[in-house]
């Protein structure tokens, strides 16, 4: 192959792989009635502003650890806030005694396990790891 072809091919491959980074979804237990929730509600749930799904079902949000790529993508896309802004947001609530940030679990697998076994939990995870044990209610594009 000519060098120019090789270059084109490898850069196309690179671009393709970059665009195919983790696709993040929000998941709940399969028994939950809601089939989908909008971005506004997802943001409100994970920022502690509401604690119920549109159907009225109570849920507790869980986070992945701060250095998780899935977590960063989730918050940037859904709330527009980076980790520092998120910390400032929660600090204002924590230190005025009005709330606590979601508990953190380590990564996608743990989120899936917890959500699959607990109808009250809502979390976000990598789309590629989704199976029938959880129900997807929101997809981040």
């Amino acid at each position, binding site marked *: 192959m000519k060098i120019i072809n090789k270059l084109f091919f490898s850069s196309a491959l690179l671009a393709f792989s970059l665009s195919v980074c983790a696709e993040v979804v929000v998941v709940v237990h399969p028994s939950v009635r809601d089939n989908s929730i909008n971005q*506004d509600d997802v943001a409100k749930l994970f920022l502690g502003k509401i604690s119920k799904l549109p159907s009225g079902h109570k849920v507790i949000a869980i986070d992945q650890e701060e250095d998780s790529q899935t977590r960063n993508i989730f918050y940037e896309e859904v709330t527009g806030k980076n980790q520092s802004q998120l910390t400032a947001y929660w600090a204002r609530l*924590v230190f005025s005694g009005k709330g606590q940030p979601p508990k953190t679990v380590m990564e996608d697998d743990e989120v899936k396990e*917890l959500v699959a076994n607990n109808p009250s939990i809502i979390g976000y995870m990598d789309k590629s790891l989704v199976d029938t044990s959880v129900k997807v209610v929101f997809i981040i594009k």
Partner: protein
Amino acid sequence: MQHKRLAVNLLLAATVAGATTAQAASTAELEERIIKLEQQIKKSDRVTKKRISTLKNAMENAENRLRISGFMTLGATKADDNVTTQDGENSFADEFTYRTDSRAGLQFDYQLKDNWSATLQITGKGRNDWDPTIDWAFLSWQAQDWLTVRGGRLRIPLFNYSETLDVGYTYPWSRPPVGFYITSVSNYEGFDALISFETGPLVHQLQPYIGASEGKLPNGLDAVGSDIYGLSYESSWQNLTLRLSAIQLDLDFTSVTLGLLPTERDHFYSAGLRYDNGSLLVLSEYSRIDGSGYPSRDLESAYLTLAYTVGKWQPYYSYMALNTLHESDINFLLVFSKAAAPIQAKSSTLGVRYEIASNISLKIQGEHFYDFDGTGGVWAASSDTIPRIFPDEADIYSLTVDAVF
């Protein structure tokens, strides 16, 4: 000829047999490897499952009922004159001091049972010799999804950041705008309620409160055991938040010359707007202190802050203005000159915030005060005789590092 054919056939058979054996050998190897890998996966699966069940237990365990968080600010501050704010809270020297803006706080949140929790927050401030003070100590009861009632020692939710005045990480500046933010009276003993509700895409929170407070008013007078009644309201829609708040304080003063004065009823009103889309931050608040005329003055103040985030940097600019609304009676002016004398001031603040980590930030800021018109503005007079000697329109420079955990 026949020998050759036999030899070829034998060779062929041997090769095939050899190949098959070799194939069989490598298949067996592969099978073995697959079994080994399956075992490894099962093992790591078990480990993960165990980790998750421990986590689930921990979520309900007593050990997880206590949450400890904290905040710290280390600051180096210098003004170009020795000045103190009228409420006596903040003193700035014309050389670098580390006590003015340094402070640390620790908070304990304990989940008692069901919907009850206890919170304790202790802070030590460099400007108060690091004496630990309990700023928050309350019991909280979540009666309903939408209603939480708290009782104990709380902080007055007057302005946007009034409840977290000491947590530098929560606001964009090195310190809340001097002259606008009331920092001398902040704690009260009493009760409040947090009422949240939604109307369509809007989320609202109402916070009524009642109690007794003490401390120095912004004008320097002591407010001891004053009854307070107030209401704060916040409503947000996507990136926009509106805030309204009102408080009523009943104050009693005595004076040597005038004796016991009738109870003064002060009203503070404020409105604020905040727009934050992650890159651009626009923050503005307006406040009005409405004394019943005397001895305190009526004051109007407002500020506007613009901040823009680019990567880890956030430069900001803030403009503040305050002035007295009307003058007090001359008798009161003479007796309570500190509190009653008219004042006016403007300030222009320029600063930049740098994100060292997601929970540590560095801010460098210059707060320039001007347009006092001979009134002394935000500073306390260095002399109480008439004519009063006021310091210059000093500027404050600071470098602060804020952290939360």
